[in-house]
């Protein structure tokens, strides 16, 4: 697929005020390491936009630049149609990757401090706090210290705090990291509600499944550069690989069934009796598999390819920490 032409073509053709985030030629260096390498991307206003890439691909650095914590070495940044400024943060909120609550403050105090820092009138702050705590299911914990909340509750409190000031743009850095499946689903439900209200969400993640499921547009980053940008379905449509899941009759070391070496086979991830392979042509692959190793195969399943497969095809390595190793 011709991804290199996809992104540059997108930006000039679209009016700049249609982007909540408009980044052009952004470069940021940590001493001698380049974290953002001439990054250009546009986040459509009102969208849920995923920044997908492995750790160190530049996602958090980009969010740091957008919130004004890092100053880019070169390039142009516009957020909500304006150049970066302190006042701009009135309309931008961020949920950090690491927990960011004062453990000694209560839930209500946490919200009240945010309201005052953003100059919300007292009564409006209290009213919004009550509404938001109710929405995220923390009303009954309003007077509890943040340190007594569970991980999922803390995340919901951080989200409620971010929503308190009615931002037009929310930056989220790995928002569901270390949350259980139920908490993840609840959090995404709240995020979807915020998006329904017109808020743009820019989500940095290395969770391909969440990006595929919840983001309307995804930008794939590698080494501080944009590799591809588009709707998840469009990105996968252009992928030349099929994905096949194989279940062997017993644990199958790579040496016994060396399918990696076959022509037309891309990446193979193995875990015990299972293997996940991306292949050019599933029919041809399966015919050869049963011909040569049919006695060892317990079952096969043609799977939908994922953004992980797209990323691997474009970059030559995986996104998630497990991506180059075991197949979960």
């Amino acid at each position, binding site marked *: 697929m011709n991804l290199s032409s996809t992104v540059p073509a997108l930006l000039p053709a679209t009016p700049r005020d249609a982007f909540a985030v408009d980044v052009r030629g952004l470069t940021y260096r940590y001493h001698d390491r380049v974290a953002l390498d001439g990054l250009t991307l546009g986040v459509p206003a009102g969208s849920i936009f995923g920044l997908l890439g492995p750790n160190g691909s530049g996602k958090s650095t980009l969010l740091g630049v957008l919130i004004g914590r890092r100053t880019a070495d070169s390039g142009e940044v516009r957020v909500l149609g304006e150049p970066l400024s302190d*006042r*701009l943060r009135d309309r931008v909120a961020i949920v950090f990757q690491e927990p*960011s609550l004062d453990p000694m403050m209560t839930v209500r105090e946490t919200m009240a401090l*945010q309201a005052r820092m953003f100059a919300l009138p007292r009564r409006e702050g209290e009213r919004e706090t009550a509404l938001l705590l109710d929405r995220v299911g923390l009303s009954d914990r309003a007077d509890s210290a943040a340190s007594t909340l569970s991980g999922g509750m803390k995340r919901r409190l951080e989200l409620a705090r971010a929503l308190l000031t009615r931002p037009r743009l929310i930056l989220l850095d790995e928002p569901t990291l270390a949350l259980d499946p139920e908490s993840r689903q609840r959090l995404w439900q709240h995020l979807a509600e915020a998006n329904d209200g017109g808020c743009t969400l820019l989500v940095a993640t290395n969770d391909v499944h969440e990006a595929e499921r919840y983001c309307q547009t995804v930008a794939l980053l590698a080494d501080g550069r944009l590799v591809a940008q588009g709707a998840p379905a469009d990105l996968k449509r252009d992928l030349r690989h099929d994905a096949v899941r194989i279940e062997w009759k017993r644990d199958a070391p790579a040496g016994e069934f060396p399918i990696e070496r076959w022509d037309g086979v891309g990446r193979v991830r193995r875990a015990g009796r299972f293997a996940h392979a991306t292949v050019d042509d599933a029919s041809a692959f399966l015919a050869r598999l049963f011909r040569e190793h049919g006695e060892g195969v317990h079952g096969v399943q043609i799977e939908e390819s994922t953004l992980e497969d797209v990323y691997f095809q474009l970059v030559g390595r995986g996104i998630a920490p497990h991506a180059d190793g075991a197949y979960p």
Partner: protein
Amino acid sequence: MRELDAVVALLVRDLRAFLRSRSQLYSSVVFPLMLLAILGTGVSDGLDPKNIRDYITFLTPGMIVMTALFSSTFSSASYYQDRDSGMLNVLLASPHPQRVVLLGKTLSAVAIGTTQALFVLAVAAVIPPINFEWQYGVAGSLVLSVFAIIVLNFFLSGLGQLLASRIRSMQGFHLVMNLVLFPFLFFSGAFFPLTDLPFWLKVLGRINPLSYGVDMLHLALYADGSSGYFGLPADVAVLTLLAAAVFYAGTSRTVRPDA
């Protein structure tokens, strides 16, 4: 106005945290009073220091300075707690310049240090063996004492912020504070008059900012031949200028993204 509101919000937050931290609240006040009791009576009775008419009263201004020193530097260390809890990032993501956040945090340290030092002064004033001279009358001496305590806390809190900008860990911060500030305290005239020191220690005492605070409090509260080492105009001028410069530098520093 918005920025003032933000500063007040940060001030209230840190004061509330301080009041909730009972151990910090009690220990910072009990320690100087304990030293006052042990050193004041022990040294006075056992060693009979020359040139000091009433050692426990002489020692009290030094203990007030020590309280301010411990308290405001300890409060400055809350910067690290905010950094480690992630709150610093949240505050810096608010629509205010960094200096507003640093101003709020530094003023909190000033307020906490001042309150504790004033508390020690108030307790000392009613302890029978301590006989303040009130050289400028009670009201005048009190005004001078409060002024000295406030200015000293501005200096120390600003210094705490400056050090925090250079030192990455809280352990390192406390280590440097101990290494730098304990000698400063010892050679400030808090425990013995500068007049009794050898020449090279007198030089250290003269370049030591704390000496001017101790001297000002001695003038206000003790007032005999061993006080007024620099004179009131010099005390006020040096301490005020230093406090203004260090406080400004401390609150104007840049918080590194990875600090």
